[in-house]
């Protein structure tokens, strides 16, 4: 229940409101069941609407929540929700990102630091801006591909031997 209140505080975003409504509905249906026993699909639906820190926290609740929160599709939503149209179809982006390590990795290793660093260097507060420009996205994607290549080295050499 506390968690609900926190989420409420976090956003005037209608996503959160929508989620609140769903939660209330859920609560009324499952009034005797614990929150953490939530149906996986239901959880997935709910987590579609949260922001990145919340999703990350959600993965720390228990094993079931971790499994659901680490779903690439959720992180894809997190990543693509804010970025401007980078010009190529979603499916293309998805295949490239998944090949190089996934959206969750992309977000935590590159997107978030790049956005934070850019915000800082422009003398703004270090909060993540709500619109992610092409350059940030491209830079993060490039860095992800370089990382994949560097990691490939170890695996590749092992395979060769």
């Amino acid at each position, binding site marked *: 229940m506390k968690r609900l209140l926190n989420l409420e505080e976090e956003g005037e975003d209608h996503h959160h409101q929508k989620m609140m409504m769903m939660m209330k509905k859920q609560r009324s249906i499952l009034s005797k069941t614990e929150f953490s026993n939530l149906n996986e699909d239901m959880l997935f639906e709910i987590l579609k609407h949260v922001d990145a820190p919340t999703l990350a926290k959600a993965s720390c609740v228990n094993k079931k929540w971790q499994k659901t929160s680490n779903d690439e599709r959720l992180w894809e939503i997190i990543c693509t929700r804010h970025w401007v149209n980078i010009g190529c179809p979603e499916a293309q982006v998805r295949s490239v990102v998944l090949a190089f390590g996934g959206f969750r990795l992309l977000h935590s290793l590159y997107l978030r630091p790049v956005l934070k660093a850019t915000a800082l260097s422009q003398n703004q507060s270090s909060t993540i801006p709500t619109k992610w420009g092409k350059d940030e996205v491209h830079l993060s994607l*490039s860095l992800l591909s370089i990382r994949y290549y560097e990691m490939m080295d170890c695996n590749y050499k092992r395979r060769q031997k």
Partner: protein
Amino acid sequence: MKREHQQQSSNSSTVTGSASAAMGSVSVSGKNKMWQEEKERSLQPDAGVDELLAVLGYKVKTSDMADVAQKLEQLEMAMGTVQETEIISHLSSDTVHFNPSDLSTWVQSMLSEINPLPNSDLISSSSSQHIDDPVTVLATQSCSFQDLGSDDLRVIPGGAICAPEREKKRLKPSSPTQSSSALTRPVILVDSQENGIRLVHTLLACAEAIQQENFQLAGTLVKQVGLLAISQAGAMRKVATHFAEALARRIYRFYPEDTLDSSSISELLELHFYETCPYLKFAHFTANQAILEAFQGESHVHVIDFSMKQGIQWPALIQALALRPGGPPTFRLTAIGPPQPDNTDTLQQVGCRLAHLAETVHIEFEYRSFVANSLADINAEMLNLRSGEAVAVNSVFELHRLLARPGAIERVLNSIRRMKPKIVTIVEQEANHNGSVFLDRFTESLHYYSTLFDSLEGGGGGGGSTSEDQMMSEVYLGKQICNVVACEGLERVERHETLSQWRIRMGSAGFNPVHLGSNAFKQASMLLSLFGGVAGYRVEENQGCLMLGWHTRPLIATSAWKLGPVADLVEFS
């Protein structure tokens, strides 16, 4: 509080230890404050421990300071004159120091080990003098130190004890004969800045001596540099050490061997350099951006890379091509590289990895590699260029090597022309290390590499580099320094030239500049913000070219070129 405690403890130990010295008769009960009754203090063997050193854990009597300072100075000189590698490693080995407070005696023991100077004379001769003479006080102090219970006077402290002493202060040597001054607090000057200036002057003087072929003077000066370098800390020390080594090699004709091994080692070092600082990343990102923009709308693209190394520039380009609006083109990559030791074909291995990466993002990829001793051995016909494909030529820190051999650069630029590239991307160091006068080259490179080392110290690690990376980067740069300063003729390959010089060269070879767009600038700035951007790295735009620098000094420059009209071209065969 600490000082008092020490005073008390040293008081008590005198009481327990045998007071065989002439000082023993003096009352030890006095808890005289250090800043009063100086004279009385000078009579007490263990009061008045210097507070600054006490903080470090050394119990040195204020009255001893002058002597200790002088001995440290002598020690330093002695250390400097002996061959670096032998003695320093000996000193810094893991020997245990038992009584760090016994500063005076260990310095003494070090001195007698390294350089049997008649320092003991100082002690023995003055022991017969009158008590009031501070020199005697010094001498008898030393004796009483012995009595204080540190039995093993021959214990040699580790280098760790040495270092903080030096970096924190430089004790000004004052001769013990300045007796009256011993009564006042001795002066401790923090003159590392002064030493820094002296260091630079000595380096320049040494270079000038070499220029005038006065190798004897140069030899003396280079030793001086070694001594002064020890007194510095951080970037200055490292730069000075590398330059001193390079100068020494030049003076004594001990040139660095350019074995085949060194190319694989330098590739390894370059990888570490890649992680530590943004220079290579900047080079790759800006070049890739120029290539991407030139390849817009092309369905078959071919990149010819003169600086393949480990191929780390290309994953980002492959990814960008994969996400190109309108679909990816077919991608051909031709690599030209030097021969490797023991015939391992690293270029082929790199190609395999890149092919694997291209496969995961469904890009049609073709790879070919050429091994050549020099870029001048390659011509356009070998490369099997096909019609309908857009060609890009890429060179990151490679072209300047051709300047060692006359005519080579013209030949290469000519072959590039024959490849009919859509774009040629060149990244080079922004410095003139190819002047004909040695002294000018030296001065230029001193400034350049000082700035570079500063940036290594000051810039953030980009969230991924380790101190090992930093060390390797410094070795990598050190090799360059060696080459610029110590080598000549064909061996001096690090012949950097400035952007303006390259502009002239490219212009006369028939190339026109292509402006790097704002996308490249933005990406570069963003990349730098990851490296603690506000710290000091700066991206500058210079007539369409991008330069990365540290504070106000640009260090590398990326430029892009396309073919100019054929009319004003001089053909070289």
